[in-house]
């Protein structure tokens, strides 16, 4: 049953030209960053041999693209999730789902997984694009995989927050605005927390992502994202269930 909702949402996503435009724009941004970093690397290449602990191709070219992706996700995820529940409420299509033999958990998971799938295209695109350098040099594949894992976890977290916000309102625009607002706050927290010793650093969303950019997959970071995703989805299910009261 989750599959039914999953494929239906994906279909609606991909028959809308907006999704393709989004993909195209994102790819332009990533490619732009990528090529400018390649340029930079080529210009400083010969200096690296002289440094005491030099960064490699992966650190200079690939990692910044993933870093940009994480910031761009803050803008994209509200757009992806805004329709999920608010449009159902607006068009009053929820009765079809409620009168069918499908549970709210299945509905929520189906929708969540569909946007996860879409959002996971971004790190995959980046991975493939940056891997093209493999033909001309050596890349740190482990480091890149760590970044992909980080982006996937970050997306799941942001998407689950977006789904919850979408379940609160029947206007997709309001849902998008709410999502932007929350993500803006998250971004500001990230900028404000430079000192690793502070409390704010420990609860900041994006700071937990940055360890993945180093190639270190921390157990606590994985747990952090999973816990938030789980709680947000739980709240969403509760909220939708309350619609019946």
């Amino acid at each position, binding site marked *: *049953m989750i599959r039914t909702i999953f494929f239906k949402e994906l*279909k609606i996503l991909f028959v809308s030209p907006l999704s393709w435009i989004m993909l195209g724009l994102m790819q332009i941004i990533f490619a732009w960053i990528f090529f400018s970093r390649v340029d930079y690397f080529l210009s400083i290449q010969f200096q690296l041999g002289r440094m005491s602990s030099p960064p490699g191709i992966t650190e200079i070219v690939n990692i910044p693209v993933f870093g940009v992706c994480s910031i761009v996700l803050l803008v994209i995820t509200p757009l992806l999730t805004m329709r999920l529940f608010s449009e159902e409420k607006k068009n*009053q*299509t929820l*009765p079809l789902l409620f*009168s*069918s*033999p499908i549970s709210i958990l299945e509905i929520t998971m189906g929708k969540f997984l569909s946007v996860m799938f879409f959002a996971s295209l971004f790190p995959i695109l980046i991975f493939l694009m940056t891997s093209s350098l493999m033909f001309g040099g050596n890349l740190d594949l482990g480091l890149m995989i760590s970044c992909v894992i980080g982006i996937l976890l970050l997306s799941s977290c942001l998407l689950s927050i977006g789904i919850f916000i979408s379940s609160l309102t029947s206007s997709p625009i309001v849902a998008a605005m709410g999502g932007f607002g929350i993500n803006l706050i998250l971004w500001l927290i990230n900028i404000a927390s430079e000192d690793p010793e502070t409390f704010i650093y420990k609860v900041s969303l994006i700071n937990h992502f940055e360890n993945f950019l180093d190639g270190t997959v921390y157990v606590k970071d994985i747990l952090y994202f999973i816990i938030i995703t789980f709680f947000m989805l739980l709240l969403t299910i509760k909220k939708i269930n309350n619609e019946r*009261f």
Partner: protein
Amino acid sequence: MDSQTYLEINNLNKFYDKHHALDNVSLNISVGEIVGLLGPNGAGKSTTMKIVTGNLSSSSGDVLIDDINIVQQPTKTKTQLGYLPEVPPLYKELTVYEFLILASKLKKIPKKNITASVESTIEMCGLREVRKKLISNLSKGFQQRVGIAQAIVHNPKLVVLDEPTVGLDPNQVVQIRELIKKISKNKAILFSSHILSEVEAICNRVYILNFGKIIYSANIKKLTDNLLNSFQFEFTNKFDESIIVEKFPKSKINIINQFSFSLENVDQLMINKLLILGIENNWGLTKMIPLKESLEKIFTSLTKNK
């Protein structure tokens, strides 16, 4: 309990904070019946239907579909349930065909039967010409038909329709009614409306709802049968009730006011007698009205001033 009873609602209550939306509503429907739910706006028709279809929870009371409580086994009961709410739940970005395939999957039709079910539903609802069209590009009439299609694509035993003809032009209304009659074989259909003639035309039985209470229930056929050959007589002058009672001891006399009354089971002989009576006593017969709209009268008399 009738062995054929498919939907049974027992003492259903619904409170919205202090507002008592449904007050001990009980009704039942058997397979093959089309039951109408009548009532003014706000009476609780939609609320009842939402509870039956799992869109709303009740405060107390239970709903049994095929003897299974919908709260305890929602999945099992919903495979035999089709619902068309006031606003048809259509995904406008999909085509008719895609949408019905989706509905089939949602209703858990086995994979191998999906195409066949969808095709037959398309035929039955007259959607053949528009099957490849986007739902957003369809007229209201066709959209309503798609709404009914999603309610029956999985051939459920219970179909719940909430004001399915509202907003349609007269031709479309007739088409929808025909469709409902067509699909009613082997199904229990609960159908709500505030158009009395419609209920009269389609339903076997009717319940009238007002302020959350069932205030009247009747078998339409019996009602119309009773209303056959019933007439209402209107006079300029006051008539004498005792004379009428004396002359027509077996008939049911319904005094409406000092100037009019109605009689059931009136035959030609009685009419002649009455005419003579009227002339003899100088009552001054002005009107003789066949009582076809008495359902309306029942309705208005029961629901006004409350």
